[in-house]
């Protein structure tokens, strides 16, 4: 039974989608309950997968393979290793939390949950797919649902973020399609199964470079990376929190997943050559994000630029894979672990920041005064963004910097990237001062409260941030074996 957990996970989401589609729109409670049960079941399966996952096993686990389109060697091929386990677990958790956050909303409930289930299926499939065509199919479902969700819930006046996001994700999507088609015809196996591409691929270095650059650009639109990030802030500004959490926390991670899952193992020579460029690109993100955040006083913008900086660190962490080519495998593993930690930490932290900070508009009011019962939560959240030791963000960045610094090619870049840490500290410290120490407070200011669902979500996210910050070893141990194997294979491929 356990070997089918991934398919069961997808089937549950699909059953939820069908059920909600067939339910009358007036039965909002039934729809919400169904969505909660479905996402809850998926979360439970997520836990089952984590507990049954063997971190020492380097082969794919829970894998299933069924022939789909034999002529193009396209299979329904799904499986889990340590890398996608992180992303799948995050997806299950955040979909469940998104359902809870949206619970009180009464605007187009049916459409929302139908599309949410589509996003759910899309994301779960994207992170589980071991065939790149399947990956692309699920990616398309995610993008289409996200476009509709943003378009509908930002309303007629919100067409701007929907359009912008639509065009960007479509550009990324199309570049990925192009890369995929080229990959299919350039590799002598004419296969899109990842395992075959990794083990038996003999693409020339020129082909690898061209396809990698196409994929890189495609993923750059999704991660998002400077200068393709202009959809980010409008989406944060105009989209309801439940949706923003999904889009910013999870969807943006698809880009990173693509880098680690496709570019590095399938096109190692190109990844090694491009690593320095990727690191510089990451540094640009950090500097740009830091400068913009320093000049901004708007919370939404600060969160947007914070995301951009985190992306920069993720790219630098990813670039550490080049250490594998220089036989510095531990450093490469540390850098990659850091990048994945940042992804996990950012997903939880940005969700928390969005849920809490969106309530305090304008942010010049004294948050502690208007929400007296929430003092520890607000303080901890802001400290998390600030990068306080003991919380997830600190250890994630620290691991990334530690890994990247050990790679001679990335020394200087890593040192310059510290500027981002300082800038981030200043920005969040200012926000902290405004929200905690500000004396602007009028007695008639309404008290800001969070309902039970929101509080539950906040507690869960806060727990994740604290647990990741205090016990990062749990996640690092899961990642270790898989990353070592990946870096070793990378090293061998580059040496050849």
């Amino acid at each position: 039974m356990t070997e089918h957990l991934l398919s069961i996970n997808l089937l549950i989401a699909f059953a939820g989608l069908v059920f909600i589609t067939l339910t009358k729109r007036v039965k909002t409670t039934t729809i919400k309950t169904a969505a909660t049960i479905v996402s809850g079941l998926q979360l439970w399966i997520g836990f089952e997968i984590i507990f049954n996952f063997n971190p020492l096993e380097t082969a794919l686990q829970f894998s299933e393979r069924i022939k789909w389109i034999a002529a193009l060697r396209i299979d329904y091929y799904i499986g889990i290793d340590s890398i996608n386990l992180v992303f799948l677990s995050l997806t299950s958790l955040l979909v469940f939390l998104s359902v809870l956050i949206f619970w009180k909303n009464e605007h187009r409930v049916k459409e929302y949950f139908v599309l949410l289930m589509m996003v759910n299926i899309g994301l779960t499939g994207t992170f589980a797919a071991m065939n790149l065509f399947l990956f692309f199919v699920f990616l398309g479902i995610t993008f289409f649902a996200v476009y509709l969700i943003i378009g509908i819930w930002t309303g007629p006046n919100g067409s701007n973020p929907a359009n912008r996001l639509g065009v960007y994700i479509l550009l990324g999507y199309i570049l990925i399609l192009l890369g995929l088609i080229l990959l299919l015809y350039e590799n002598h196996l004419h296969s899109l199964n990842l395992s075959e591409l990794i083990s038996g691929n003999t693409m020339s270095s020129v082909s690898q470079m061209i396809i990698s650059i196409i994929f890189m650009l495609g993923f750059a639109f999704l991660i998002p990376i400077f200068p393709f990030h202009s959809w980010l802030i409008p989406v944060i500004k105009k989209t309801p929190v439940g949706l923003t959490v999904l889009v910013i926390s999870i969807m943006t991670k698809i880009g990173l997943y693509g880098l680690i899952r496709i570019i590095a193992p399938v096109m190692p020579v190109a990844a090694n050559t491009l690593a320095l460029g990727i690191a510089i690109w990451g540094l640009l993100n950090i500097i740009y994000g830091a400068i913009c955040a320093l000049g901004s006083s708007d919370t939404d913008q600060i969160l947007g630029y914070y995301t951009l900086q985190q992306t920069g660190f993720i790219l630098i962490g990813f670039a550490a894979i080049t250490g594998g080519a220089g036989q510095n495998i531990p450093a490469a593993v540390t850098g990659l672990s850091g990048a994945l930690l940042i992804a996990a930490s950012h997903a939880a932290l940005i969700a928390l920041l969005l849920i809490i900070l969106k309530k305090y508009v304008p942010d010049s009011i004294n948050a502690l005064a208007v929400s007296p019962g929430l003092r520890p939560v607000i303080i901890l959240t802001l400290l998390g963004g600030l990068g306080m030791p003991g919380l997830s963000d600190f250890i994630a960045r620290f691991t990334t910097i530690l890994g990247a610094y050990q790679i001679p090619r990335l020394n200087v870049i890593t040192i310059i990237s510290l500027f981002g840490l300082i800038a981030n500290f200043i920005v969040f410290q200012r926000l902290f001062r405004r929200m905690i120490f500000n004396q602007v407070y009028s007695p008639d200011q309404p008290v800001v409260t969070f309902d039970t669902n929101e509080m539950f979500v906040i507690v869960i996210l806060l727990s994740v941030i604290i647990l990741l910050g205090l016990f990062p070893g749990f996640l690092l141990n899961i990642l270790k074996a898989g990353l070592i194997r990946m870096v070793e294979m990378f090293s061998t491929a580059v040496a050849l």
Partner: protein
Amino acid sequence: MTNFHSLGYFIPEIVLFLTALALLIISVVNQLSLRLEKFAVGASLCLALLALGLIRPTVSHGIFSNLLVWDAYGQFIKICSIIITIFIFIIYLHEQNHTTVTELCFVFLILVVAIFIAVSANHLLVLFLAIQIINIAGFLLAHFPDSSRKNDAVGWHDLIFSLTAGLVMLMGITIIYGTTGTFFIAETGRILRTGADLNISLIIGFVMVMFGFIHTISGVFRLHWTVKINRNLPVCSRLLLTTLPQFAEIAALIRLLNSGFGAISDPQPIFLAVGLSAGMTVIYPIFWDVKEHKSIDPVNVASLSQTGFSLLALCTLTLSGYVAAVFYQIAFIGCLIALATGELLTIQGEKRPGQIVILASLIGVPLTAGFSAKFIVFSNLVRPHAGYYFLIGTGLISYVLMFIGYGRVIRQCTVESDRSVLTPLKGERLIFSIRVLILLSLICGGIFWTPLTDYIRAVMIFGVP
């Protein structure tokens, strides 16, 4: 086999033509009841479909010294055309504000006959004539609902541009005849295969025929007028004009390329003519400011790009490319019919969620036939040649533009409240069933497309007795 014996293979055309003629004559002598008129058209279409289904010979047949040929490919395309026509006819029966004149039924049937002739044509002049009949029938169809002066002027512009494209094609045909001494498509192919010298006149002839033919199909130069016409047309006429002619003409172009011009030893000129025209067709919507127009316009404009995708597949001059082109057309036409059965702006995201799936298919979202069709086209275009990279580039840009165009329609359907453009069809069971049937086919085509592509490949047998 004599012409008389071969007539048996052209029963569908005969049935349709005789019905059209009978309708016209009776309408001159005596006013026919509307009910009887509809019955006659419906019965002739069903008879034609039945006849097409029953003919199962193993070898190809020709009539009138092989001016027209019957082969498996022709039969398949005709069956598809007649099914599309029947769907459109059902929509016509359910449409609330259609024009009820006998001439419309006549034109309707004549258009189908012309399409059948174009698909079977083995002679360049017959092909040319069939295309011109299609053009003129289209012009007449476009004029029944509204004969205002403005619409008239627009219609004339449309006709003149299509006739100009036809003229270029005719010039090309005469040059080819002057060089090869034959009008027969298969004969031209045979001459080319025997290694005839490729002189400049022949190349110019090929290029002119291709350019004229493709611009008759795509109508890039006349699209400005076509969009204006389509805006005011009833659903059935618009569907008839935007689906069948393109489908049949692309099918005829495939025959022309496979049996005739494709045999050329150096395919560069053909590639250039088809590729440039396809590129123009695909990229055209970039010049169209969708914001200025009604929401139905993006659908019409993007439809041009959709036709362009089929043309892109033809650039490969290979069987798999032709299969991709036909598959693309089937998927696209299915979407348009399904879309019309629900009408765009009555959905509002709440009433007809199926429409979103159809629009998703038109965009090319995975798990829909629209995506698999695009994927097959792109897969065919991946070749180590700069020209193909250019075509892939234009195709990808068009993909983005389509998303914007259809995305605008989706947004109007789901968010905005502009419902003023089209009249809803009566939500009858038959219409609903067609929509569901096509919807399911679109999803099946998106998940398991190989059975259909394999079948199309199997019927791609072009024969001359």
